[in-house]
């Protein structure tokens, strides 16, 4: 098992949670369009794929989804769009120490390893709650002997991580997640770029957005130790949407597209 850099890249998307079944999800198509729009005439071979876990999660979260549907049914809820409310509700109600969450993590890990076994360089794009699953699974893979030898990218099942509207800066997620897994000695760096809109309330937990200056989300995980082996950057974007709508507006953002282009081509 080794990554073959001559093979087409695979951009693997993991979504946030929302109502509807897995068939309703198409974020990988949006990412495909976004990346194609940034490539211009550059002949880059790539595919996009989506890890779906909604059907699995629906069973565990049915009571919360009933509640969310009730909220959506009232005039305030209707003004906000059901998708945004679904995502936010599920961020807070999702339990990451349950058997369902463990199945989701295992499924995502299996999907990554399937791409790895085929030799395709894999890049993960994770939205909302999906970014927490991605964080957990990638760090878990790094802790395994068989993968992520720092000096050999061919042993890396994931070449880079992009997170969109991640709630990882909220205490409910970061209080227990204190650090990323260090890759050890070497000079190859694993890249994690976190995009956020300042008015996205899922990122900051604030009703009316967060100031850009001095606000660290993913960058809280940076370490001065050269053994960490991660490049971690927070990148603010202006999605053109505000508040809850900003949380679901990353998929066609040119800044995100340029960042993804940069990651998969370098």
């Amino acid at each position: 098992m080794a990554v073959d850099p001559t093979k087409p890249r695979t951009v693997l998307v993991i979504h946030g949670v929302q109502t509807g079944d897995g068939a309703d999800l198409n974020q990988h198509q949006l990412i495909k369009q976004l990346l194609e729009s940034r490539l211009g005439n550059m002949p880059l071979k790539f595919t996009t794929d989506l890890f779906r876990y909604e059907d699995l999660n629906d069973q565990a979260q049915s009571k919360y989804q009933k509640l969310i549907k009730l909220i959506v049914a009232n005039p305030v809820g209707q003004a906000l769009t059901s998708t945004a409310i679904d995502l936010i509700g599920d961020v807070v109600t999702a339990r990451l120490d349950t058997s369902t969450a463990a199945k989701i993590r295992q499924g995502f890990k299996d999907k990554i390893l399937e791409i790895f076994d085929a030799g395709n360089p894999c890049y993960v794009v994770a939205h909302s709650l999906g970014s927490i699953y991605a964080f957990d699974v990638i760090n878990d893979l790094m802790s395994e002997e068989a993968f992520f030898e720092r000096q050999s990218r061919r042993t890396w099942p994931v070449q880079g991580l992009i997170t969109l509207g991640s709630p990882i800066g909220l205490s409910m997620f970061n209080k227990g997640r204190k650090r990323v897994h260090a890759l050890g000695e070497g000079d190859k760096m694993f890249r994690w770029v976190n995009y956020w809109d300042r008015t996205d309330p899922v990122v900051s937990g604030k009703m009316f957005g967060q100031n850009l200056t001095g606000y660290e989300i993913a960058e809280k995980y940076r370490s001065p130790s050269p053994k960490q082996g991660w490049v971690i950057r927070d990148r603010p974007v202006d999605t053109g949407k505000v508040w809850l709508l900003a949380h679901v507006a990353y998929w066609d953002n040119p800044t995100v597209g340029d960042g993804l282009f940069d990651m998969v081509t370098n």
Partner: protein
Amino acid sequence: MIPFVLISFLLLTTMPAYSVATLKQQASAAVKKFFQVTEPVAEFQGRYVDTPPEYGETCRVRLDFSEPGKEYFTIRGAYTPSTSIGDGMYFDAPDDTFVTVNSEGDTLILEQRLRDSFSTGTHTYMRLHKQSGVVTVTIKETSRLLLFSSTQTKHCVILLGG
């Protein structure tokens, strides 16, 4: 008049700061005393009781005082991700996040409130009860994000010295 105002100001500003710092220290000391641990790290295996089965059957209570300023006292279950040190009390958080430390006989109650904003944060309540070498650790954690909140309660039973 001016000295009186100055003294009043100092009293008002320094007293709360002193008391909240003490509360965090009290919480840390109370946990150590409750478990009677002298080592920097202690771990106890246990089982969940009266807890939804989705959290699994086993639990592990860990007290880690190995890194000054980054101590923690947490519970992990069979399905807790490897990247997480679990749910519980984090002593790397600011002093004023500790809101209750109440020790009475064989019972210890701790509360910590981590705020991201006025509408978002987590509130963790822990009740530890010891009887005949058996400790029941109850953790009730409420997470809030904007319009939503969710509470989970778990009970982990461990055997001291077991």
